[in-house]
């Protein structure tokens, strides 16, 4: 029982990480119908910003704030000046821009901060007694924090989409940009804002997830596996659904923790492969995901 609970807690922790990045992917997909492959690298860059500020003596909780603002600007500028100009010409060009952003941001991070792994400060203290004992299993404060922040982000986004005028406009653009434009929605602005918000959520998620994802340090390849898992989670839940991102992320996190725990012959390193299997399976069996309405028509 305690082993089961330990695995459940570990799975929930990584699940919450996937949910946060999957939410970013969903926000972009809803407005632009594309998967932003550079989503992880946005979060990587802003995580370096947080790390750098923390190294200068800024409290880590405060250091996240400028990182979120920078994230918002990066996302908004990327949509306005890189994605939108090529979108008019060619849909596949958007993919190329995503890949270019991916490598460009990764290179930029490496150029500024170097390629060595950085020990990352934790947002909560860790030590011998930073957990709650439940039937012999340890529920770490880290897990509680990331689940709480994930819940807060989901609640905030849900309220934003359902109760505000700009949220309504975003939902309208998500269902039909042309009809939304006829209602007077300035579709371009909505797209820019969606990308900005998405990268801002990523900037909040980065510092939370870096210490939790092996090797627990910040390096140039920190975000890539997370992006793959988050893509699998978003596809599983449905690329245009917030609820889908939550269910997909948690299901994937907990599912993989159980598989790795019980099916030992697969070995821990098989997780990434499992995630890719999930991606292919969803695309083949149910391309709209569990809760989605729209499928991935082009990447």
């Amino acid at each position: 029982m305690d082993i089961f609970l330990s695995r459940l807690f570990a799975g929930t922790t990584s699940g919450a990480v996937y949910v946060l990045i999957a939410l970013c992917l969903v926000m972009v997909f809803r407005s632009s119908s594309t998967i932003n492959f550079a989503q992880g690298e946005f979060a990587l860059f802003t995580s370096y910003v947080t790390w750098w500020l923390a190294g200068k003596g800024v409290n880590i909780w405060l250091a996240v704030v400028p990182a979120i603002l920078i994230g918002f600007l990066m996302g908004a500028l990327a949509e306005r000046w890189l994605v939108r100009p090529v979108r008019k010409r060619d849909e596949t060009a958007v993919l190329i821009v995503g890949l270019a952003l991916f490598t460009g941001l990764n290179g930029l991070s490496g150029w500024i901060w170097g390629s060595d792994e950085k020990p990352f400060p934790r947002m909560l203290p860790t030590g011998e007694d930073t957990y709650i004992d439940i039937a012999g299993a340890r529920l770490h404060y880290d897990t509680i924090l990331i689940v709480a922040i994930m819940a807060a982000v989901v609640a905030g986004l849900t309220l934003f989409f359902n109760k505000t005028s700009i949220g309504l406009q975003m939902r309208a653009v998500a269902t039909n940009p042309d009809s939304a434009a006829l209602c007077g929605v300035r579709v371009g602005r909505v797209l820019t804002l969606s990308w900005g918000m998405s990268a801002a959520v990523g900037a909040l998620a980065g510092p939370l997830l870096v210490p939790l994802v092996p090797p627990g340090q910040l390096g140039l390849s920190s975000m890539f596996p997370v992006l793959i898992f988050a893509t699998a989670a978003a596809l599983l839940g449905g690329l245009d659904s917030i609820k889908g991102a939550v269910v997909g992320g948690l299901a994937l996190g907990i599912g993989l923790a159980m598989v790795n725990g019980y099916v030992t012959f697969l070995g821990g390193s098989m997780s990434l492969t499992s995630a890719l299997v999930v991606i292919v399976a969803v695309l083949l069996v149910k391309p709209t995901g569990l809760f989605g309405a729209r499928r991935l028509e082009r990447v």
Partner: protein
Amino acid sequence: MSAVLEARDLVAGYGGLTVLREVSVSVDPSEVVVVLGANGAGKSTLLSALSGQLPLTGGQLLVDGTPVRNARPDVMLAKGVSLVPQGRGTLTGLSVMDNLRLGAVTRKDKAEVGTDIDRWFTVFPRLAERRDQVAGTLSGGEQQMLAVARAMMSRPRLLLCDEISLGLAPVVVQELFVTLAEVNRELGTALLLVEQNAELALEIASRVYLLEVGEVGASGSAESFRDDNSIRAAYLGY
């Protein structure tokens, strides 16, 4: 008195294809005008251009006699021109309520939006009963009611309607036209109707434009058109 909306020598099309060749039309305040034309004549293209949806390659739009610089849908809406597009202009993924709220995004007087929603629920009680239903699951007639109400939520001075009778039962069409006539009479909203159902449209219209492959072929009073035998034969079928 200048026209609510005047189009001077509009040229517009899709890519390399020019559909409108120097089309000029105008609608006076509170006037009801109908545009008739065969399939493919460019009626939808005309309304698309008038609503700011389709960029112009020539000519200009004037609202109250003043040229509109960058005609985009939000700009035209803010100037009082609203379109009910051909084939159910609703956001099918959103609820009836959300569709109506969305129709009002360009308005500054947010406080009165609720009052207007209530008014349209009184006009179309069937929408009121289905306020939380997703628009895509409404019947064709209900969707068309929603499309009209949504377009009216911006409180336009000119409502452009693209074949709102298409695919609807005669009774429903009759109801919709009665509502449109009331809107025109009570709110003073000018109407520009594109219709296949010329007979009904001619009943409430005072002026007619005949669009023939991208050009205005003829225009005149609705009365003269009703009496004209050749037009009767071509558009009314009797």
